[in-house]
């Protein structure tokens, strides 16, 4: 088993097709087939059911996929860390952040950190909080910024702060800014991706107030910016994190609405793996604890 075989396996798994995987990896189909076969012989398991329409992963295939992703992530982080190793310390830090925090609050802190630690290479990615926890636990990512909290015997969690989710709409749309929750059923509700932790917080808050989520006209979008554009040009309501709409609330291009005085708060945290000790990681965490929190927007 080598990394190439695992990459070929993962690509075939996500494409559900050997020919598509071959195209994306710039390899021939026989090469893909050969690597998959070698992997299956080594593991003594069938990983895919082949058909003329493509491939379907077996149950074993699903299990291998979860491990393979972790192994590839760990391996790639190791290679990049070693590339930045100067004989004394590793000078590379991988940060994975939930997208709202990563887009609106984190960049300024990272900019300030880079000014004082220019020798450290920062690599920032966005992901869902549930995936970030796996990335930090099992794929070699150094720092995670998540919505909510998470800790176990391997993971330390530092509280960063709290924020709010607000009901918003275009000002031309609604004449009345105080509404009953039941009115929500009459409108299209633009919400974040269903894998987002904030979406779950919203759904739980509405359910706790007795709302039937199945009766809501929910339109989902993975991009907060596209939700904001849609609000400006259509008759919809959305529930968005305050940090993402500060500008629009200030310029009054969007207004915040009051639904039965419902308040939705959430916290965010920094997580990291306790057993991984890297000087640049310690430097970053110390910075966040002492000054970084003040620089978050």
């Amino acid at each position, binding site marked *: 088993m080598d990394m190439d075989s695992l990459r070929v396996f993962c690509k075939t798994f996500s494409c559900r097709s050997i020919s598509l995987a071959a195209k994306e990896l710039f390899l021939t189909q026989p090469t893909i087939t050969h690597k998959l076969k070698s992997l299956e012989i080594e593991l003594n398991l069938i990983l895919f059911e082949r058909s003329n329409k493509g491939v379907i992963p077996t149950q074993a295939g699903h299990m291998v996929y979860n491990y393979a992703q972790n192994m590839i992530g760990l391996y790639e982080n190791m290679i990049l860390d070693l590339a930045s190793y100067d004989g004394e310390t590793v000078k590379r830090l991988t940060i994975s952040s939930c997208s709202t925090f990563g887009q609106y609050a984190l960049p300024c802190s990272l*900019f300030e950190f880079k000014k004082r630690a220019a020798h450290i290479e920062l690599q920032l990615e966005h992901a869902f909080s549930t995936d970030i926890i796996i990335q930090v636990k099992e794929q070699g990512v150094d720092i995670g910024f998540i919505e909510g909290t998470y800790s176990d015997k391997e993971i330390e969690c530092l509280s960063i702060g709290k924020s709010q989710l607000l009901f918003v709409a275009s000002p031309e749309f609604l004449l009345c800014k105080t509404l009953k929750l039941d009115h929500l059923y009459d409108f299209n509700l633009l919400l974040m991706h269903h894998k987002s932790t904030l979406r779950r917080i919203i759904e739980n808050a509405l359910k706790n107030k007795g709302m039937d989520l199945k009766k809501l006209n929910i339109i989902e979008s993975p991009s907060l910016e596209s939700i904001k554009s849609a609000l400006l040009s259509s008759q919809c309501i959305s529930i968005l994190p305050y940090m993402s709409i500060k500008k629009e609330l*200030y310029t009054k291009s969007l207004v915040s609405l009051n639904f039965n005085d419902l308040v939705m708060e959430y916290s965010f945290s920094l997580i990291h793996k306790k057993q991984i000790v890297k000087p640049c990681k310690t430097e970053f965490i110390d910075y966040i604890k002492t000054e970084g929190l003040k620089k978050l927007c």
Partner: protein
Amino acid sequence: MNQYVDALGDMCPIPLLNAKKMYSDLEKNEYLKLVTDHSCVVTNIHEYFNYLPCQITIDEVANGVWEILIIKIR
């Protein structure tokens, strides 16, 4: 002429670069008004303009939104 800089959504160091440019075009007693939603911008601008002959006022008009007024004295 008085200047207005809408730096909402702009990350460091863009607002400071814009503010420096606009400030250099100001005459005596004219002002530059800058709006930002990033706390580091407030710090950077305050640190930079503190050494220049001007009067600075910073007003947090909403949670996480600041209006900075810089009046050129000479």
